């Protein structure tokens, strides 16, 4: 279940942050005042963001993880699940771009249309044959209060996969650089599986 455009993916107050090495990745846990959580997983070596998931606490029903980056594990027991013939939408950034991949798209290249809906601050993927449609926002941009600009969205289609890219603005590149510096410092201590690290932000 990918991210949707609302307050679900916003920081609420100052979070308590801790980091641990788990499963060969650096996992950063943020715990907020209202008990909701954010978990990010970075590759240990190149500090690439592999997963980011959120959990809001609800009093009236079971809370579930919402994946902003990375793929949620498929619930095999679910009564209603997407057939594996459907296109799969995943976000996986590159150092310079926010990148979204849609796998399993078998329609010809000229069918895909991309645009920015400035009113809702979303990127829209359309198909002229009316087979696939997706609206999504970039939560990182929202959180930094930056606007999406028409014309900056680019796309490439190959190997039955549509790759949509949006360049990261300087502000975000700065912040990511800082995070990488921080992680490099941790790496100097040669961390092993299970190590806890102190994070200040």
């Amino acid at each position, binding site marked *: 279940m990918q991210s949707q455009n609302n307050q679900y993916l916003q920081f609420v107050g100052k979070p308590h942050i801790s980091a641990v090495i788990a499963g060969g990745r650096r996992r950063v846990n943020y715990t907020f005042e209202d008990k909701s959580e954010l978990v990010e997983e970075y590759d240990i070596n190149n500090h690439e963001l592999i997963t980011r998931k959120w959990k809001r606490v609800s009093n*009236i029903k079971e809370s579930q993880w919402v994946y902003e980056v990375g793929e949620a594990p498929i619930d095999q027991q679910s*009564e*209603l699940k997407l057939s594996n013939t459907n296109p799969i939408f995943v976000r996986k950034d590159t150092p310079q771009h926010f990148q979204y991949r849609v796998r399993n798209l078998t329609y010809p290249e000229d069918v895909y249309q991309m645009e920015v809906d400035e009113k809702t601050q979303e990127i829209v993927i359309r198909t002229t044959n009316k087979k696939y449609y997706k609206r999504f926002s970039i939560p990182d941009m929202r959180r930094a209060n930056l606007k999406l600009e028409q014309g900056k969205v680019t796309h490439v289609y190959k190997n039955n996969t549509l790759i949509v890219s949006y360049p990261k603005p300087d502000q975000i590149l700065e912040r990511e650089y800082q995070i990488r510096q921080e992680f490099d410092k941790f790496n100097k201590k040669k961390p092993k599986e299970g190590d806890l690290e102190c994070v200040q932000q």
Partner: protein
Amino acid sequence: MTTVNAPKINEYKEATRVERVGAQSHIRGLGLDGDLEPRNISQGMVGQKKARKAAGIILNTIRAGKIAGRSILIAGQPGTGKTAIAMGIAKALGNDIPFTAMAGSEIFSLQMSKTESLTQAFRRSIGVRIKEETEIVEGEVVEIEIDKSATSGAKTGKITLKTTEMETIYDLGAKMIESITKEKISSGDVITIDKVSGRISKLGRSFAKASEFDALGPQTRHVQCPEGEIEKRKEVVHTVTLHEIDVINSRQKGFLDLFSGDTGEIDPEIRDQIDSKVAEWKEEGKADIVPGVLFIDEVHMLDIECFSFLNRALESDKAPIVILATNRGITNIRGTNYKGPHGLPIDLLDRCLIIQTEPYNEAEIRSILEIRCEEEDVEMTEEAKEVLTKIGVDTTLRYSIQLITTANLVAQKRKSNEVDVEDVRRVYSMFIDHVRSTQYLRDHQAEYMFDEYQKQTQKMQVE
């Protein structure tokens, strides 16, 4: 026994999902008109006008939702429609207002104390109406494919949904397949599926399919094919009960416990927390408290501790409307050495409005039997109905109702579609009612085991 026809019958049953018919399943409401006047025969209810009119007034009190903690006692002889009236109120209230029905004896559980049982019952009857964002799947059905595995008999299926912009295929689990078959969803229907609860709602039929020759029901609406994405987050108004919120918050796996039914005792501290949180939500306008109805049948089975608890609980401003029912007269109040009217202490009775139900007359019994015949899908000749009515008058209403399906089976055995007098006579002789049973026992007492009379005579012989 013709086995050739058997497979066909099974298929037919699966397609229309025949459900088991319960004793009160023919009740659809209280059968009142706009002015709260009871129609003689309506919505499954017959006669009993005074009681139904009173119930109608209670119904409006509940709907207005402004007055909490009223209690009503429905009292009358066995077989006079007490449970039926409670059912009528429940059906008339609809799905939005929580209605909890229980029998007095259910309080006595090994897993929790009486007061805990009662508290849970109360909290199950208070609803909280919250607006929530849920994930839904909304689209027009393009096609549904359901396959049955030859080896395991398990059903698998796929459904293709579309909007004006896209199409998606979903794999279906067994429960989803059941719901789809039950709701008779087909290509061209526009549906919404709540991903979390699994509930399916049919919004109508797509305009695009309107030109086809379908046998449409009178309530079919035509709607536009939905736009945009198939998977959306929508705000849905949700009614949960306080008890459900208690359980979810009382432990880690609380949510799953709701289904297994094993909730055990809940910490009163948690309840206090929930109460203050719900009050907060109410202040913020996020939620509404909906007091519902708690129906306790056979209330004479509760004991004096429960009654004291009830007295106190009724005084809370969040208490639901409590409807009690009993068929006892002046009886022992359990847990004491005293007798009281209906087996209840006077201070509880004082808090109740009492509705009395009376035994039915012959014409009413006849109407009820006719309604039950229809409900149980049984055809009966006029003469058979006459005889059955007479039986109902001479014995009891319930006994004659039970003869309906049994007589039908006897009629089918002699290959007739209609029940006739001979069938009724046959089952009357096969199954005896309690009056005849008592008479029989009086006459043949000596032949039964552990008979007091027998022991006395034996004793006398020995001496």
